[in-house]
């Protein structure tokens, strides 16, 4: 599938059957393993929350999600139903199988104290950030991953259009309360999440909100 326009697809999965059902408050990190064949759903509970996610191959942590390989493989920049998230080794990691939001970003990266000094003001550096979340999760996990592994991520529920003349714009979100995206794992996955605490960007109405994570076992067809 090469077109990357918005593709809305609802899921038949029943939350009552999920084997993981976790609400993550805003500003928190989350590290979760799930298996090949399992399906992950991320829910934007209150709307226009950025959920910043990096995926690793759970069997080989040096293999990570690659924004550039993903965009190259599908020939475009937006993620939605049918998009295959590719690894740094050019292998499929996850496939988006349902999406009621319709567009997700992989160009905008995750906020950091240091990038906040550049984007907003030098004095913003003591504010909480996604890359602080990533680092504290990895420090506590102590599994050999570190800052070098904080590669360009997926920003679920974010809308970051590129214009024909090559400008990057931060548009109003296309998400809303209860919208979700679902991904089927094509390999065993370690997922690193920061539920974004950014307070300087109008894209979330300056109000970070919770997100929900559900996992289903492989479905018998």
């Amino acid at each position: 599938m090469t077109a990357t326009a918005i593709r809305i697809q609802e899921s038949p999965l029943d939350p009552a059957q999920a084997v993981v059902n976790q609400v993550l408050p805003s500003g928190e990190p989350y590290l979760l393993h799930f298996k090949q064949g399992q399906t992950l759903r991320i829910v934007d509970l209150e709307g226009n929350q950025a959920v910043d996610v990096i995926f690793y191959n759970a069997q080989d942590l040096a293999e990570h999600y690659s924004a550039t390989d993903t965009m190259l493989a599908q020939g475009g920049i937006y993620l939605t139903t049918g998009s295959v998230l590719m690894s740094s080794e050019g292998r499929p990691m996850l496939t988006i199988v349902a999406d009621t939001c319709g567009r997700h970003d992989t160009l905008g990266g995750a906020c950091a104290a240091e990038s906040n000094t550049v984007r907003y003001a030098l004095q913003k550096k003591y504010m909480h950030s996604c890359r602080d979340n990533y680092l504290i999760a990895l420090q506590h996990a102590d599994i050999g991953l570190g800052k070098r592994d904080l590669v360009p991520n997926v920003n679920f529920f974010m809308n970051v259009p590129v214009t024909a003349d090559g400008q990057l714009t931060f548009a109003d979100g296309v998400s809303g309360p209860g919208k979700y995206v679902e991904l089927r794992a094509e390999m065993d996955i370690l997922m690193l999440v920061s539920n974004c605490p950014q307070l300087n960007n109008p894209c979330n109405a300056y109000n970070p909100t919770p997100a929900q994570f559900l996992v289903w076992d492989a479905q018998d067809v």
Partner: protein
Amino acid sequence: MAQPFDAPAPLTSNQPVDAPAFWQRFAPDLPADRVMWSEIVPGGCHWSWVMPRGSRLRMVTLEAGANLSMVLYHAREKLERYNMPDSLKAQHTAHYTRGHVLMSDMGRALASITADTVGWHDPLGALLDAERLHAKYGDQTFHTHRNGMFRSGKDGLLIEIGKYGLARRDLIAPVNFFTKVAVDAEGRFQFAPEHAPAGAMVELRFDMDTLIAISTAPHPLDPSPAYAPRKVGLAAWKSGPADAHDFNRRFRPECARALHNADMTYL
């Protein structure tokens, strides 16, 4: 008799090593007394250098249709490296030209684009890997073609960063100089053919001591059915760091802050 502390003889074209002044062919306007080195990089090849703060790298296409992929790391602390999303979102851009700053993940300017005759360089980071190379162009190995073998941009950059202890997980999204990839309303990539003519020029000024690795392999979206990488001339010269009235510093407030953050590490 020469004394141990005599200054070495000045570099001239008469010295007994094969280091011609290539820059005179493609960048003759450079000040001769400040040129550090120059190279002609054949198409498909790879190399790496440490560029000191205050040096510049002039890059010139010697044939139409060249692509030069570059990755950048802080030379002393290689955990600090060029960050594509941070650079793009700080400058609200999906292309690079004069004025833009290549920023590290630590909020510092690694390099600034100080001159550009092309107007669009591709920051979206796509690299030709071995699988795509073989699928698109077939096999042409060393065994049969010696140094006319096909080389992928990804493997070239992996070799170069490997020389400095960096591994595959450290390979970052590169900047593809001389290539334009636009994005249409549906989000699809549109590769611009014949974007950079022969003689196209772009120049970087390094704002920190920076390890760069480059490959001149084709861009993965290049629709040409033949593997035909093009050669690029490189000339490094000493310009000094950005002053208070620097063009990049005044290009956007975000650029000023990234350059300030870099300056703070060289007090």
